[in-house]
């Protein structure tokens, strides 16, 4: 038996036994170390007879590869076992709580304003704004509500001076005046914002939110007004059909004027919008009064159109089942958390208003 065969048999049998990483490294160095058995054989190649040299070299290479493969296999095996042992020790209770996180929320009124803007955006309205402090002219006189008009009684106004020239706007309608004075017709705007009346009880808050709408162009009539509001209400409440009633009313700045009711019913204690035989008043509207147009230098013989005003808080209450108006402004952490919206829930046309 040649030396080579002897080395091979000895070490193959050794490598079949149970070995740890140190023993294996010992074997590795016994074979392939500087003076290892295999290394020594390679050094011998030059001394071997030329006729046998080729075969010897070839046999040696084969044995070297064979042993090397065996060793590598063994190393892998041992490493695998070692890793598994280690992993077994590292097991952790994954039901322990995650690192804490906090969720911010968007106020339902802000969310509702975004929903409203999104709906009106689709039919070509753009958003205008006006200041919270107004002068008496923009809030009343320009809106065809001169001093001593009984309609002023319907607005309990907060004043900032004794002369009653500066006030907190009682509605968003002065934005109509500002917009029309600033630009030339046509106008197609909505104006959401804060409004104020010195009224405070269960159903009234001294501050609330309105959205004003104004569309002035040639030949805009009450049919367009009805169509626009019908579209808005359907989209807002995310229903296919809406029962809606226009009822004559009076606002000094529109004529003819209307109040709009929507049908509803109470099912299992919940309000269902759009059906039923009960009526709920949700907004006031009408054709912009020629006197108002004259006040802002728009010729009522050439241009006409409609305006509307909607209570935003009330819309939010109806859509999201909020009972108490006062709670909107009470900043109760629990309430904000419950009725607030995730900031990532941005109302858009393509992915819908709400989840």
């Amino acid at each position: 038996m040649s030396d080579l065969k002897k080395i091979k048999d000895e070490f193959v049998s050794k490598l079949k036994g149970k070995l740890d990483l140190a023993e294996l490294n010992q074997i590795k160095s016994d074979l392939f170390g500087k003076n290892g058995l295999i290394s020594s054989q390679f050094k011998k190649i030059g001394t071997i007879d030329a006729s046998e040299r080729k075969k010897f070299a070839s046999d040696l290479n084969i044995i070297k590869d064979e042993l090397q493969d065996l060793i590598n296999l063994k190393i892998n095996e041992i490493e695998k076992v070692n890793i598994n042992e280690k992993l077994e020790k590292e097991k952790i209770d994954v039901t322990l709580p995650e690192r804490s996180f906090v969720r911010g929320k968007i106020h339902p009124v802000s969310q509702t304003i975004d929903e409203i803007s999104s709906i009106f955006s689709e039919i070509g309205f753009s958003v205008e704004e006006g200041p919270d402090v107004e002068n008496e002219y923009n809030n009343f006189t320009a809106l065809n509500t001169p001093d001593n008009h009984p309609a002023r009684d319907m607005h309990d106004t907060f004043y900032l001076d004794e002369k009653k020239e500066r006030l907190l706007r009682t509605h968003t309608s002065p934005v109509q005046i500002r917009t029309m004075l600033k630009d030339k017709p046509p106008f197609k705007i909505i104006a959401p914002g804060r409004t104020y009346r010195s009224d405070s009880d269960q159903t009234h808050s001294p501050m609330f939110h309105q959205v004003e709408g104004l569309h002035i162009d040639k030949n805009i009539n009450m049919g367009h007004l009805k169509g626009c509001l019908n579209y808005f209400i359907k989209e807002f409440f995310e229903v296919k059909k809406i029962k809606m009633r226009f009822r004559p009313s009076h606002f000094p700045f529109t004529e003819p004027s209307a109040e709009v009711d929507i049908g509803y019913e109470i099912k299992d204690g919940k309000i269902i919008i759009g059906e039923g035989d009960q009526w709920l008043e949700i907004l006031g509207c009408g054709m912009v009064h020629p006197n108002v147009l004259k006040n802002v230098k728009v010729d009522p013989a050439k241009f006409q159109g409609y305006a509307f005003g909607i209570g935003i808080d009330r819309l939010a209450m109806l859509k999201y089942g909020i009972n108490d108006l006062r709670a909107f402004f009470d900043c109760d952490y629990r309430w904000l958390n419950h009725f607030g919206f995730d900031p990532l829930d941005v109302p858009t046309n393509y992915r819908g208003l709400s989840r």
Partner: protein
Amino acid sequence: MKITFDWLKDHLKTNLKEKNLLEQLTNIGLEVESVESLSSDNQLFKIAKIIKTEKHPNADRLKVCDVNVGEKELKKVVCGATNASEGLITIYAPPGAIIPKTNTKLEIAKIRGVTSYGMLCSESELNLSDESDGITELSKKHEKNIGKSYFSKSKSNLIDLSITPNRPDCLGVKGIARDLAASGFGRLIVSKEKKIKLKTKQTLKVKINKEKGQGCSAFGSCLIKNVKNTESPQWLKDKLISVGQKPISAIVDITNYVMLDINRPLHAYDADKIEKGIFVRNSKSGEEFTALDNKIYKLEKGMCVISDNKGVLGLGGIIGGTRSGTEFDTKNILLESAYFDPRSIRNTAKKLNLDTDAKFRFERGIDPLSIETGLKKAASLIQEICGGEVSKIDIQKTESYKTKIINFDVNSFENIVGFKISEKEIQRILTDLGFIIKKEKNSLKLIVPSWRPDISQQIDIIEELVRISGYDKIKTIDPIKDRSKSTLTQTQRLFHFLQRAIASKGYLETITWSFTDQSYNNHFREAGKEIKIVNPISSELGVLRNSIFSNLIMYMSKNLDRGFKDLSIFEIGPVFTGSNPGEQKTVVCGLSAGKKSRLSWIDKERNIDLFDAKRDVVQTLSEAGYNSDHFFIDSKTPNYYHPGKSGRIFLDHSKDKVAAYFGEIHPNILKKIDIKTENLIGFEIFLENLKLSRKTLKDQKLKFSVSDFQKSERDFAFVVNKDVEAQELISVISNVNPNLISNIKVFDVYEGENIPDNQKSIAISITIQSSEKTLKDKDLEKINNSIIEAVENKTGAKIRS
């Protein structure tokens, strides 16, 4: 305005039902607010007779009465009235009845140990009169009606209408009937004026002073002599009670009835109490009179008063005075029917803070041509009920009524309303509403009825026509989905972006009132102007807010009191800098309290601090598109922040406008408002101070360039004086070679051992990378030396070896 269907039927012939009526009223703009059934409650009050009275065993002033209420058994009722005596016929209210005066429901009750089954009522308790002294005494002829209801059964319900301020004509039942008839709901009954003989002359002189600002333009009157004022007959009492009015005396009741029926306010004077005639004049400053509400009013100059030689009798069209009021013993009366200018009425009432039924009507505009009709209608009723002789009618005028004429273009209707009605229909509606029509070539010439002060131009006619035709006829024209202008401006987009960016960092959005408590506001006002509300709803809401903090801190405190410890809230909204329109700024204001990682099994808990707020602000601004590398930060902040633990951020080194403040709220404020938390951190971002980028995302995204050459990181530690800011070091370093220095990061700040007092060590990691080549050791060496040199020279630092 309260009406009943029965009363309406005095003016309206119809076979339709009340249900239809309610619908139709709303359809034509006379909104039904509520429908109340009065009759069913009233039916409980029975005519009864006291059979026996005994003294109450435990109370001297009370009696225990056995009362026959028409049932087999007598009822035991405890009564305190002195006139409760055997044999008296009176009115009994059983348990369950609601007493009209107090609106309380009767229950079986023990009164001083004796059970009382119901109550015997005074006239005042039943709203029949002011008589509250003793229980009602009915005449013997009621004996046969014992057990029957005292109130005659009213068939119709009380309908409360909300009449808009432009429709004074509908403050009378007749006006409502006219509208209904025009809309096809029945036919208007043309009532014939009752003929009365007017023989004698009106001998009391009436004069309207011609003076500037005279509020009365016509004063009609007649004298009725030798009347006997009594209680009203049942039909009249029933009528007034049916609409919730209290009968007083025949004369007062009749004037009220005429007012409610045709909206013609009248006033009856005791003619014998008027000294030498009536003068309608402007008041003098300081004049006083006692009004029928028993209050003394001190008048300003120029209010329209009715006076005699002795002084003011009443405020014209608002309220009469006690001196000339009618009583049951009044013999001769002067009946007034006048026209007062709405503006004058409103001015006076506002100044005196007086609200009366007459004022409500006159300020909306009374039919100036109803003076005579009203006088005649009332006079004939007075004569019928109280007797007496009626004088001729005297009308003094300073100006006469001018009829209003409108030329109506028939086509304008469709133009505004969007549907068409025939000219014939137009004429019919307008005629029914009382217009007189003359057809002209291209239009209709319309004479407006005198009772419609609201109608003066074409659009008013269109409103009438569409209101009566029905709003349901208006077509629905679907909107076109077309957008020619962007929905939001850039500023509005930024508003929404900031709002959601802050919320996404764990802040709950709140909305608080724009006004606030003065004392809270003062903590955050600095030198800002205090803007007071003249008429606040309460003193705690007396000023416009100069900062959002005042409200946020108040509500934060409330939430902490509810037991929440760690929370962040914010608001985006206006703060005010002055009381003129536009003197306001939009601020995003946030407030955080408590700790981070409270009670965490994994993270170390710590108080929330200003670097939390700074991160939220800087991250938000970065997300909104502002490059935080350019920010300049210093520590000059308003006095409501902790002076050492707060900062302000500018978007760049030009320090143009403050973009934001952040920091701890001043400890003195926390102490004053007694807020309990580990730490309170706030920030304010000023929307209008953020410059809007001229570049849209579309433009910004175009260029993309990065370096793939090897980068090196080098750490430096500098020892500097304590007052040298990290920002300064960073700024110096970045200027050494902006092309090569790509990232500078402070990773340690140290004070203490091995560092001299008043100095600190700042450790900085710097990334060096070229976009052109791989830097060699000597290149790096060179830049290292430049960095050390620059920092040492410019900040007085020493590199730490």
